[in-house]
């Protein structure tokens, strides 16, 4: 059994719960059940799962989003094929002949159509088809499809999770179920330690469609400090080095004009003092994460960003290293224990 067996199981179980933006029902149900093990929790108007544990010290909010990129049904054509648009930053280049689940009255298996090469014009192979040229083949007539599916149903990429070499795993929805799992792991670590701060945890919805969940949840929490846990780009052969962390080299601590520099320094210092490997992620402005929304919600909150390096973002084969998730959880826990220091 691997060193990270329990963590791996939690991440994969969490990632297996469907949660396309605005349709996070299954992922939220899982998040609520897990969060309630550590603190009272509830679901707000937009669907955010929010928990709070009282304390004398400063109020800290931990956030990770539980939605994932997906697609949304727009209509069913006469042949029973399901037309769709994107729901979040879906990458059209991975869609041809990809397996999907359409979340209707019941989950329906399908394959996104792919035009065979004999119908391709010169250079067609170099260009991915756009959403309006694609459809899902569910092997049903229009009548039958209409009984189970309707416009507004979400679609997710179907892809199983697999272990790669070392401590790396691949599969869909690690963005950002791995981040949410890191927070749960942090809460587990904190169970056997004492800390003084008042702790809020938010598993937020609709990050992939613009961060509405974080905006409203951040307002409700009204914390003094917020730490957003997300994923960020890991180095790969085709990636620009300056935009990437390295997989397996520890959590990435964000530094940017919008992030609080004091929290950045403290996180770095705590990582060093506790021998937790970490790397810096430098951004020139907005971070493209919930940190952007939470920072300016209500009367504002000091915000930090911790990211798990991840390859192949928004595909069905996102790759993370379990060690990075564990290290991120330990860094978070150490920060919270020092929250009143």
């Amino acid at each position, binding site marked *: 059994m691997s060193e990270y067996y329990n963590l791996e199981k939690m991440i994969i179980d969490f990632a297996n719960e469907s949660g396309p933006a605005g349709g996070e029902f299954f992922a939220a149900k899982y998040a609520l059940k897990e969060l309630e093990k550590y603190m009272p929790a509830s679901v707000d108007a937009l669907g955010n799962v929010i928990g709070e544990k009282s304390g004398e010290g400063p109020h800290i909010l931990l956030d990770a989003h539980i939605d994932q990129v997906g697609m949304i049904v727009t209509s069913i054509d006469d042949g029973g094929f399901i037309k769709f648009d994107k729901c979040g930053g879906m990458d059209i280049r991975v869609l041809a002949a990809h397996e999907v689940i359409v979340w209707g009255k019941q989950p329906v298996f399908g394959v996104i*159509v792919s035009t*065979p090469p*004999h119908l391709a014009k010169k250079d067609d192979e170099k*260009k991915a088809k756009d959403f309006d040229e694609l459809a899902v083949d569910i092997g049903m007539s229009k009548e039958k499809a209409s009984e189970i599916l309707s416009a507004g149903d979400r679609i997710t990429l179907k892809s199983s999770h697999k272990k790669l070499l070392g401590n790396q795993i691949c599969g869909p929805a690690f963005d950002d179920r791995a981040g949410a799992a890191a927070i749960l792991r942090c809460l587990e670590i904190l169970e056997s330690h004492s800390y003084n701060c008042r702790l809020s945890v938010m598993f937020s919805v609709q990050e992939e469609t613009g961060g509405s969940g974080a905006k409203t949840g951040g307002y409700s929490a009204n914390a003094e400090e917020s730490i957003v846990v997300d994923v960020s780009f890991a180095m790969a052969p085709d990636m620009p080095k300056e935009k990437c962390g390295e997989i397996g080299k520890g959590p990435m601590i964000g530094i940017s004009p919008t992030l609080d520099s004091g929290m950045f320094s403290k996180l770095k210092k705590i990582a060093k003092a506790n021998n937790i490997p970490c790397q810096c992620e430098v951004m020139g402005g907005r971070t493209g994460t919930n940190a952007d929304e939470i920072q300016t919600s209500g009367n504002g909150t000091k915000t930090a960003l911790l990211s798990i390096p991840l390859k192949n973002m*928004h595909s069905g084969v996102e790759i993370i290293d379990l060690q990075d998730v564990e290290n991120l959880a330990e860094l978070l826990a150490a920060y919270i224990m020092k929250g009143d220091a």
Partner: protein
Amino acid sequence: MINQLKSLCALSGVSGREENVRNYIISQISGFAEYNVDALGNLIVFKKGADIPKNKIMIASHMDEVGLIVTYITDDGYLKFDTIGGIDTRVILGRKVYIGEDGIPGVIGIKPVHVLKDEEKAIIPDLDNLFIDIGALNKEDAEKYINPGDFAIFDSDFTEFGDGFIKARALDDRAGCAVLIEMIKSELHYDSYFVFTVQEEVGLRGAKTAAFSVAPDYAIVVETTTAADISGVSKEKQVCRLGDGAVISFMDRSTVYNRSLYDRAFDLAEKYKIKAQVKTYIAGGNDAGAIHSSGAGVRTLTVSLPCRYLHSPSCVICKSDIDEVYKMVKILAEEFANA
């Protein structure tokens, strides 16, 4: 036949590495027929029937499938690869693969859409720029598990869905193999040869030597053929349709078929109430290309199962078409034996 097909699709057998498929087929037909394996790896089967036919009949399906082959391991431990057979780069980005005999999992990496310039967002990268990521730390780490020349297949389970449809890898042409196995296990009217060929996807190489050895008078190739009966494709470009039965070709890119055999197929389909359809677009090729021009020439016909998304990880067929293909091939074999 569906269970047989499921077992066949679970096996890896890219061109040149068909041994798993061949061994499985041998296990299925042992006791029902005589067989031998030729120098290239073709499985050549002779099945006694009740009577000796006037003409020597050969029925062929290929065992191999399209896939990938590892060509090089980079210093960072990524695997460069080439395709085995015709694979559209559009259907391999961001997919999981299993490499070599041990099935080491890997993924075909894709640069995240976030870091692309707007004009790059619909552009499919060249095969040369793609790589497989197995999570190796570096070249030495990767070399513990992978060697150049290792093959890879796509991760795709056998899934039944919708109203009688199947999605799987390698349906091309394990569906044909399933039909042949079923025939070999059945009672035949006439002595017949069955060949399970190798290396169809890399240029019909196995069929060439198998046809030479058997030297038949008539041949029937049992295949899958591309079906484009999908959203957004006009009727005249759909080639054939799932659920409309056995597809009979008058011409493809490898063969101009014998017209009287083609006509005979539709006469018989009508007589025996078998669902059959015309392949209405000239595209693709198959073992018939090597077989019809073998020796002094072989009268050849192809009977195919319509298959959507051919050569992708997610091929789709309709279950009812398998039975129609089986009935069609069996009747045609008897007809040609006595023609």
